[in-house]
């Protein structure tokens, strides 16, 4: 049993490495003289490595399933990893429709970030509570994440479109927002870097604080910038918090989560400043020349097509299958649980996206911005709702 889990972990690790190398080969396609859409040596290597990585990650999925006895989509680590896997899968499909190499250079790093992000959560295999014991766990969760992953490809294409098309000669609201989008990606990277660093150092600081009439304790894995409200530090030789979180922050782990968020934002800011200092211009402005070869209307098409493909899949998994399962497990198909509501919001949003595009002619840049916002909503539902808003879905 233990061997299977090790094997499973190795498969995931291998997949990660393969995706990483594939990304470099996709980057190599920029230098190819030929136009976008034709196969070259580097593009062939890149897509082959991506497929190998996907197969390896499928190996992870299957061996972990064998080890735990249930589909590995039941906690934040497993679900987020699976989402990364589905993102690669969606990318491969879209790649074979459009042969757009530059998409790989953006979609794969996003998948890498998501998989790395997933590994920050507890990785041990966990048992299923009775409400999760159903075939609908596999059906619902896999379809939702496939749907969301296809929609994420739309984000990748939209982002490339924006970087390519937005006028970088003058500073504007659009350039600022684009930098904010890039910064938030860097903040995710910041979270991974800072968590991994302090994890390696075995950092731990324990606090005691009053919570709902009792004394609770919380373990910090990052140095406390923000400590719990009225908390006392128990671990010796650790820095004292710079400030305490306000008392209205709910939940026993609220302070720790807020502290982690703070660290991510700061590290992300550090990365951003370094990047700006090296590049001596806005990050998007630095990437822009690399996209010269890419056709804007093709990016626009891919971004829209991904929504057209992903929307029905998301509806099926995120609403219809979800309702069927909710009826089976909780005897009501809809209960206004935050996760449910945010799935509905996602659905509303992409419905509006499609109407604006098909009936009101929102093409190009406007459509690309919508794709970015849509992805933000998906990530909010995927992560923030679990971490911030407690509800029936907070299994992690």
């Amino acid at each position, binding site marked *: *049993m233990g061997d299977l889990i090790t094997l499973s972990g190795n498969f995931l690790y291998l997949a990660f490495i393969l995706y990483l190398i594939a990304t470099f080969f996709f980057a190599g396609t920029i230098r190819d003289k030929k136009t976008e859409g034709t196969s070259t040596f580097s593009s062939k290597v890149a897509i082959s490595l991506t497929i190998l990585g996907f197969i390896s990650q499928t190996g992870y999925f299957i061996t972990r399933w064998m*080890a*735990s*006895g249930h589909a590995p989509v039941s906690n934040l680590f497993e679900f987020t990893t699976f989402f990364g896997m589905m993102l690669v899968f969606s990318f491969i499909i879209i790649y074979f429709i*459009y042969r757009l190499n530059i998409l790989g250079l953006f979609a794969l790093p996003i998948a890498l970030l998501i998989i790395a992000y997933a590994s920050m959560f*507890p990785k*041990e*295999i*966990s*048992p299923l*509570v*009775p*409400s999760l*014991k*159903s075939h*609908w766990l596999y059906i619902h969760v896999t379809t939702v994440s496939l749907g969301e992953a296809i929609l994420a490809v739309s984000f990748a294409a939209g982002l490339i479109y924006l970087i390519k098309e937005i006028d970088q000669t003058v500073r504007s609201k659009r350039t600022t927002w684009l930098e904010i989008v890039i910064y938030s990606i860097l903040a995710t990277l910041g979270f991974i870097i800072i968590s991994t660093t302090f994890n390696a150092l075995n950092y731990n600081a324990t606090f005691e604080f009053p919570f709902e009439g009792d004394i609770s304790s919380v373990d910090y894995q990052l140095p406390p910038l923000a400590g719990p409200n009225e908390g006392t530090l128990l671990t010796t030789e650790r820095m004292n918090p710079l400030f305490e979180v306000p008392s*209205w922050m*709910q939940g026993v782990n609220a302070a720790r989560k807020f502290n982690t968020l703070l660290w991510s934002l700061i590290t992300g800011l550090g990365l951003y400043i370094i990047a700006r200092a090296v590049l001596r211009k806005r990050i998007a402005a630095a990437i822009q020349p690399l996209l010269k070869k890419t056709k804007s*209307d*093709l990016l626009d*098409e891919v971004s*829209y*097509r991904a929504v*057209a*493909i992903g*929307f*029905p899949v998301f*509806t*099926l998994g995120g609403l*219809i299958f979800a*309702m069927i399962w909710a*009826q*089976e*497990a909780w*005897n009501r*198909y809809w*209960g*206004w*649980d*935050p996760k449910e*509501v*945010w799935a*509905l*919001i996602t659905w*509303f*949003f992409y*419905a*509006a996206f499609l*109407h*604006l595009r*098909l*009936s*009101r*002619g*929102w*093409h190009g840049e406007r459509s690309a911005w919508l794709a970015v916002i849509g992805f933000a909503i998906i990530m909010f539902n995927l992560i923030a*709702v679990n971490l911030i*808003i*407690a*509800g029936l879905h907070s299994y992690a």
Partner: protein
Amino acid sequence: MREIKCDACHHINREGTELCESCGKPLVEKQQAEGKETKKLLNMRYDGSSRRSMTYNKSVVDRVWNFFSSVKVGVTLIVITLIASAVGTILPQQMYIPQNVQPEVHYKDQYGLIGQIYYQLGLHELYSSWWYMILIALIGISIIIASIDRVVPLYRALKNQKPTRHTTFIQRQRLHSKTDDVTDADKHTFISNLKRMRYKVTEDNGHVLAEKGRFSRWGPYVNHVGLIIFLLGALLRFVPFMYIDDFVWVREGETVVVPDTNGEYFIENKDFIIETYGDSEEDTRFKEALENQSGPIAKNFQTNAVIYRNVETVVGAEPQLEKFKEDSILVNHALKFDGFALYQTSYQLNEFKSMSFIIHETNDADETELASFKVDLTNPAEEYQLDNGFRVMIDQYFPDYYIDDGEPRSQTKNPKNPAFVFLVYPPDSSEPEVSFAGIGRNVDASGENQYKVGLQDFEVRDVTGLTVRKDYTLPILGLGGIIFMIGVIQGMYWQHRRVWIHPKNNGLWLAAHTNKNWFGIKKDIEKAIMKTNINMVVDQEQEEQELQKQQEQNK
């Protein structure tokens, strides 16, 4: 009704028509694609057929119609509902706060001023508020009107398509090319290639229309029909007999009537089972996860149940039960019968079933038993005749005993903490002694009792809590969902592609249109004209955009 006669083909068109329904010649001057920079291209929406909302705006009906048929209004409604829905997740809704607290106090205590405002604005019950319901209703109306407004012209446009199109129509399509000299063989190759790609080809005097995936145009209307059916289904829940939501507690070994079945069905709880992880061999794989948890993790909640049917038809007579169905009820596995479903939703462990007491002399340190009796806690007898001439009567029974302001009371009717006031009649005495007995309590009311009642033993059993549901709206919702999915897939995964071939002298003009995925139709044409000398179509929209860009740069 005003009519418009086409000056090219003399076809009589309805008022509001923009492109002649017969030959496609523009009938109005400003016929161009909405939201696009180019002035050259035709607006191919509904092929220029007359749309009610674009034609009339005189009466109130017209105005209301035009308001709801607007996509701008529809999208605005969606966005408002979206934002409202998000607001409802800022704080938990009332149904997710603890049951035993006053919402007014809870929101203020837990979330301070924000909580108070949230509560005062009624946001704690946002999704059942009148204005949220109205938003959903408005979206429903918008879906219906906008769909009818568009499906009619679309039907008219697609019903009778003629291959022969006016030259203006051909030239002002987004994809267009002219080839001066085309041999018949090349033209034939082109057409048969299109046929091979499953285009339906109609020919008229050398004019050709090749068409593919027309059915996808109906997708949006099909999915809107699905949505309307779904919304109606959700509305039907408010019709009383369509929807029943009840709850029943069943003790182990007990048979009780299933509520809302008019005494027709009974349920027996044979056994209630609760399992946690860590007991069995195969759970060792979860060792690490279990160690990181403070408490045990539930593995299974299960009621082994039997459903009986009452075959006694006389009202008021003793029910005659016949076994109807036997099954176990688990989370994710409801027991279904005759439109009803029983869900495992709650339980109580170790509720007291019976208690045994003994009577002994008060000063007997060994507490030698003089007499004993057993009280059935769900159905206690009033009087007990015992050995050695003792007699006990139950004066008061508190199933769920607690002290309220010095007064003994019962919190619930369930025997969670039973206590009794017994009247003990010693042998040959008509004067009872008053004794109070319960768990860990044994009070001599007068302080002069000669005999004492002591708790000797008790039996416990589990109680299962089952939700009783009957929901006739589910098939309707399911139907709506299926129709929606069919429609959305039909509309999204297929495209309506059309290619027109217009003979011109020795050559031909080519035009093509698709409702989406222009990349795909270009690839189709590229493939079809391979090995012919027909020119590839030019994307006139792209061409114009590039021209504009160049002009801007030259400035």
